[in-house]
């Protein structure tokens, strides 16, 4: 008798639970229905333009035929990856990509930090704002214009060679020389991006409490000591985050800029994975092979970002997740 009553009770509990669930669902629906309506377009956008191409990486494992589509094309497994890894030119591409990226980080990461620290030391707020305004400008100039400037400035009749000639040197075709390509790419990158990136560090600097500086002054710390013991530790987390965010991009350099600057004469140092994917994939219509290189790039990037985040977690308190 008891057990029957218990059973009945259980049933009714389950029933009310179910009812509560339905009720809750209706309540949530009534509350959020307009939000879902609004979110419909962004949702479709992300599915179609972001997630569908992710599904498209299946191409790398298939022998893609346009008429058959992604699904209809036959599977070939790792054929294209093997082809890529057995091609000696691939190693030149990987080397060029990694070397350029490492140089970009080596010189490109400290530059805005230094600029922000120096701006922070300026006494006149007005002058500081003026310098900032000027230094942000190149960020808003198109890549085509920046590269157009580079191409014309380093041409044999350009300003750079005029300066060379002024000092008694001979004009030199800088952009035709593979050994100068990286320098040109990185110097122009620093010119264009340093001012704008320094904003992030300036924001971090302004978040350091003034009472820290006041206490340091009372303790007799001079300007250099305040910089080393308060300012730099204050922005260290920001620097680490910026570094971590870039670790995943070791194999992805900004190939749009290289496409504008390189010529056959500079492939030796300038040809990178991104430019090769463009030439082989879009100009050569070798879709599967190019996608395989892209997958290789993403996987290595993922390994690097996870790995460096793991290291950062262990050696400091700052990490991405």
């Amino acid at each position, binding site marked *: 008798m008891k057990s029957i009553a218990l059973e009945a009770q259980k049933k009714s509990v389950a029933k009310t639970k179910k009812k509560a669930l339905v009720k809750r669902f209706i309540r949530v629906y009534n509350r959020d229905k307009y939000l879902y309506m609004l979110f419909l377009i962004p949702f479709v956008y992300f599915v*179609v333009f972001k997630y569908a*191409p992710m599904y498209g*990486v299946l191409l790398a494992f298939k022998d893609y035929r346009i008429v058959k589509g992604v699904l209809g094309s036959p599977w070939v497994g790792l054929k294209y990856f093997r082809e890529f890894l057995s091609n000696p030119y691939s190693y030149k591409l990987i080397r060029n990509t990694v070397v350029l990226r490492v140089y970009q980080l080596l010189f490109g990461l400290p530059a805005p930090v230094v600029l922000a620290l120096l701006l922070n030391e300026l006494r006149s707020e007005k002058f500081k704002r*003026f310098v900032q305004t000027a230094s942000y400008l190149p960020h*808003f100039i*198109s890549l*085509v214009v920046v590269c157009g400037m580079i191409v*014309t400035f380093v041409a044999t009749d350009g300003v750079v060679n005029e300066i060379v000639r002024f000092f008694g040197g001979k004009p030199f075709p800088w952009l035709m020389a593979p050994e100068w390509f990286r320098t040109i790419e990185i110097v122009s990158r620093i010119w264009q991006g340093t001012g704008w990136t320094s*904003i*992030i560090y300036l924001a971090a600097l302004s978040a350091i409490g003034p009472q820290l500086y006041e206490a340091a002054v009372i303790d007799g710390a001079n300007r250099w000591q305040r910089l080393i013991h308060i300012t730099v530790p204050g922005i260290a987390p920001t620097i680490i985050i910026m570094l971590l965010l870039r670790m995943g991009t070791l194999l992805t350099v900004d190939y749009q800029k290289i496409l504008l600057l390189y010529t056959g004469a500079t492939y030796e140092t300038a040809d990178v994975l991104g430019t090769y994917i463009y030439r082989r994939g879009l100009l050569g219509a070798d879709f599967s092979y190019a996608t395989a290189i892209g997958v290789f790039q993403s996987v290595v990037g993922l390994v690097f970002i996870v790995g460096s985040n793991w290291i950062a977690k262990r050696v400091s308190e700052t990490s991405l997740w």
Partner: protein
Amino acid sequence: MNVNVYDRSIGSRLFDILNIVFMVFVVFVTIYPFYYIAIISLSDGNAVLRGEARFLPAAFTLDSYKLVMENPSIPRSLLNSVLYTTIGTLVNLSFTALCAYPLSRPHFSGRKFFTWMVTITMFFSGGLIPLYLLVMNLGLLNTMWALVLPAAISPWNMFIMRTYFQSIPEEMYEAAIIDGANDLQILGKIVLPLAKPIMATLLLFYAVGHWNSWFDALIFLDEKSKYPIQLIMRGIVILGQFEQTNLLDAASDFVVIEKTLKYATIMVSTLPILAVYPFVQKYFVKGVMIGAIKG
């Protein structure tokens, strides 16, 4: 900051002076290339070849600009760029707001899942080839929509907008809900009017991005009549393709050379940005600050 705790030692003062000298150098290096391009584009070709244009235009003339505007692809591509920038920015802003508003409401069920869905796309993408094939399969090749739709929402900008929406006091929402307003009305009548500053900032970010982009047009557009200014400029300035075979204008005393023509082309395409930049740069900075605090 440490402006109010002066250090008056000699070393410190020397540093201040060197710092100011360095900053003047930074400003010069940043600005002079633009200035140089401007004065060359306004100079006579022969004077430029003689090396006379350094700090002021030599033998001032607008001939290079005349020649640039006579090239039919330039005015046409400028109009194309204006069209792509306008439509593209409108799509960007409306899509971004539609995405940011629901994600900013704390009770929106599924909010966590959708936020992740957006965040993942910041770190992973299918890559160039799958995107190209997608655009091809959707039948968007060689249309304006290939330049507008694939990058309709920048997750970064969306998070900036969401952060701004979240900073609107919750009481405003509560009051509106008590008055019987639904989310559509709240978004249209309360949130968007309050969010004007951030909308202005993102409008500028998106618009500059569209105006400056060239690669999408290179891979998605076939017909030259649809090219934006950046792609036409790439042909002229970087690849050295000129449509006019005769640079020497017989009717003029001035000579236009390749260099003055290239620089006039650069000026024409960059003038819109250079003209508005001093007035709007503070909005740009505001946007980055909100982004930096969030991230």
